[in-house]
């Protein structure tokens, strides 16, 4: 790894990909890490911030030897990106559905619909049977209503016309 690239990285002048590769490689290159450290020191000195304490890097890294390595899940970024795009995707989906419904209504053959209904064949026999059944029911009901007054008083007076008598014959009773 060239130190010139390292120097550009410190100044924020490397692209994201290049920068990521460089940072990854720094883990294995102690000499480059020291160069980095020296460049930062030079920058601080030039800005008038000369170190007044000893270099703490070795001391702190020695203390961290006993610490377990951090393995934290770094799932923040993709989730943030997803959250960022979700409203846009939802809006696009909504517009898509609205357009699709509009197009469906527009292209529907409206004139043909009544004609189709009119051409549906009707079965005449069904109508005849229905009329006969309805007539029989109506006769029976009117007969019961007419004779309601002459019916004997019963605990259920007034509802007699709605009662149908049935007989149950069980095997072996007779």
């Amino acid at each position, binding site marked *: 790894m060239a*130190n*010139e690239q390292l*120097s*550009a*990285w*410190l*100044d*924020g*002048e*490397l*692209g*994201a990909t290049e*920068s*990521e590769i460089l*940072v*990854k490689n*720094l*883990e294995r290159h*102690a000499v480059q*890490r*020291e*160069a*980095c*450290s*020296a*460049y*930062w*020191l*030079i*920058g*601080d*000195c*030039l*800005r*008038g*911030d*000369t*170190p*007044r*304490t*000893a*270099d*703490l*890097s*070795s*001391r*702190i*890294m*020695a*203390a*961290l030897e006993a*610490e377990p*390595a*951090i*393995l*934290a899940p*770094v799932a*923040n970024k993709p989730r943030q990106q997803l959250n960022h795009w979700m409203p846009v995707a939802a809006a696009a989906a909504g517009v898509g559905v609205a357009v699709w419904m509009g197009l469906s209504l527009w292209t529907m053959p409206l004139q043909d619909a009544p004609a189709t209904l009119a051409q549906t064949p009707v079965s005449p026999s069904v109508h005849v049977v229905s009329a006969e059944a309805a007539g029989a029911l109506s006769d029976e009901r009117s007969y019961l209503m007419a004779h309601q007054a002459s019916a004997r008083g019963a605990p259920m007076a007034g509802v007699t016309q709605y009662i149908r008598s049935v007989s149950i014959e069980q095997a072996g009773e007779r």
Partner: protein
Amino acid sequence: MSDREIDQQLVERVQRGDKQAFGLLVAKYQRKLCRLLSRMIRDPAEVEDVAQEAFIKAYRALPAFRGDSAFYTWLYRIGINTAKNHLVSQGRRAPTTNGVEVEDAEQYESGDLLRDNDTPERLLQTRQIGEAVNDAMALLPEDLRTAIVLREIEGLSYDEIASVMACPIGTVRSRIFRAREAIAERLRPMLDIAPDKRW
């Protein structure tokens, strides 16, 4: 990439188990943190201890760091709290009237409080490092010196330096690197980094 993005990259490396990336954050911010702490604690040895404690606390808390604030702001807050706890444990009061806040942590001049308590060795080392940097700067060719001054002191980007110096960005990049290397060459004997002491 901004400075904050670079820090975030290093933080994410640490969060994936790369301890050396944390060493880089230490190398980058130790002087700034010590400068901040020296406003609260006078003894340089205590400043170093508190700085170390703050960095270790930061390392332990790093899994919870999500980058909502800049890393250095977060680190400074840990540093200030560590210093306050340290002073309380020593039976001393943390400064309040001339208090140190994270917001103005980067705006004050170097710690005046510390100067009275510097040991002769520390003063010598500070002076030597300062002199080495100044000497190396004086020996630099004009174009290298201008490039590094525009970058480190004026804070210009490579693009802006290229405009000022009327040269391609690649030349700016090369000049800044060569300037840094020339100064680092002078500093190395002073930093005295033995191979076994490398982190």
